[in-house]
């Protein structure tokens, strides 16, 4: 930066490769798929 600043800006951004697991339904949030698999061994 051109001059010192007290605090860095907050900027958070992650990318996610589409895998078909993350898409939910607008009226129905399928419980977390990983948790589902863990609970039922699927």
């Amino acid at each position, binding site marked *: 930066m051109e001059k010192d600043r007290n605090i860095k800006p907050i900027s958070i951004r992650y990318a996610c490769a589409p895998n078909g697991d993350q*898409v939910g339904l607008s009226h129905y949030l399928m419980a977390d798929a990983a948790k589902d698999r863990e609970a039922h061994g699927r």
Partner: protein
Amino acid sequence: MAVNAHPDLEPAATRVNVGAGPHFDVIHLGSRDHVALVAPDTAFWALLKPEEALDYLLGRELPRAYLAKETELQRDLHTVRFGLLPSAVYFNPTERCNLDCGYCYLPRQARRTGRDMSPARVTEALGLLADYFTATLPEGARPQLVFHGAEPLLVREAVFAGMEAFDGRFRFGVQTNATLLDREALAFLTSKGAGVGLSLDGPTSQVADRTRRTWGGSGVFPRTVQVLEELADYPGLNVIATVTSANVESLPALVDFLHERGIGNVLLNPVRGTQPGGRALMPDQEALAHFFFAALDRTYQLLQQTGRKLVVGNFANLLLGLAAPGARRLMCDISPCGGGRCFFAVGAAGEVVPCSEFLGKPEFQGGNIFENPVAEILQTRPFREVTTRVVEHLTPCRRCAVRHFCGAPCPAEVHAIHGALDAPAPYCRFYVDQARYAFRVIAGGRLDAFLWDGWQQGLEQIAVL
């Protein structure tokens, strides 16, 4: 003597808001601590102290750092907007319901005397869907199929036969009012690991029964709560509250009610005005914002007090839209919405529409699953109208800084109200306030408190600043 470069000799690309330079909008967040600089086209944002924002905006570091990552940010957003394959279905095996909820997206007459799909037809339809997904999704992918309604357990034999026949091929779910969910049905669904979605609109009979009643006018609150308590520890449980003018003030109390019972996940969905009944119950946007945010605040207080989270899924999804657009799960608050591109809906006669919200609108049927290949249905005009509806084509959305954190939902509701798809969200002001609230959550270091545990798993950081 040092000579400063003439400002006009700086690379054109580092000059913000002109020519080929990056474009940043400034958003007031309703707080003295931070403002947001947003590059709306890529959904990039940075939160800054207000007294430093102009220095960042007009300095060199931010534009240069942003330009170095712009293509990556753009590609990530483009993938979630245009690059996903359909992987979920709302399946409505009957039009009938044993309740008469005033806001349902199905017309009242259909819910009273409508059609059922036979067990053989349900199994046939699931076979057609399984074939379609096998041909389109990567090997090993398990698409979601949620029996929805109306009340799907009115045709329980057909639903359970379909689940049995295609066990392991789909991730199944059932959205139900719980009135027909007896011990045997619960045992079957939990043994299959199926998602169970329960509808509950308030923390007391007095509130919940205002909108959710039998045709005879009786409430079903006690039965719903009984099932809710039985399933509280079940990982596939999901609770949906439809937010209306009749229950909006009770949202914070509903949070307490659910949290006391150990529920970990709820959707607080503002009612859609797709049918006249829903339109009549749409809450005032200021009241919606006030009580919705009070409910979110309450989840945070309860987390601090007890260490237990109650995640409000639709808000959590918006936070993901800010922090990790590609990891979002719900597809209402992005444009194009998920209807017809991430999921679609099948009605009781086999008709296929982009989303269940369109089931009462014959002009949005793309075909019939028993008569037309799914792949062809998804390319028909009604589907393309929905899957090409983007905020860039809407006024005032095209110049709104939070256009990719809102998505101008919902096309079915917009069409019902305006007779066309090219209009902004009926809850526009609420969505803007929700985005500002979400930025304040992040600025306050509370992001994790509102998201599912482990939300960063599998994600890759894009570091800009």
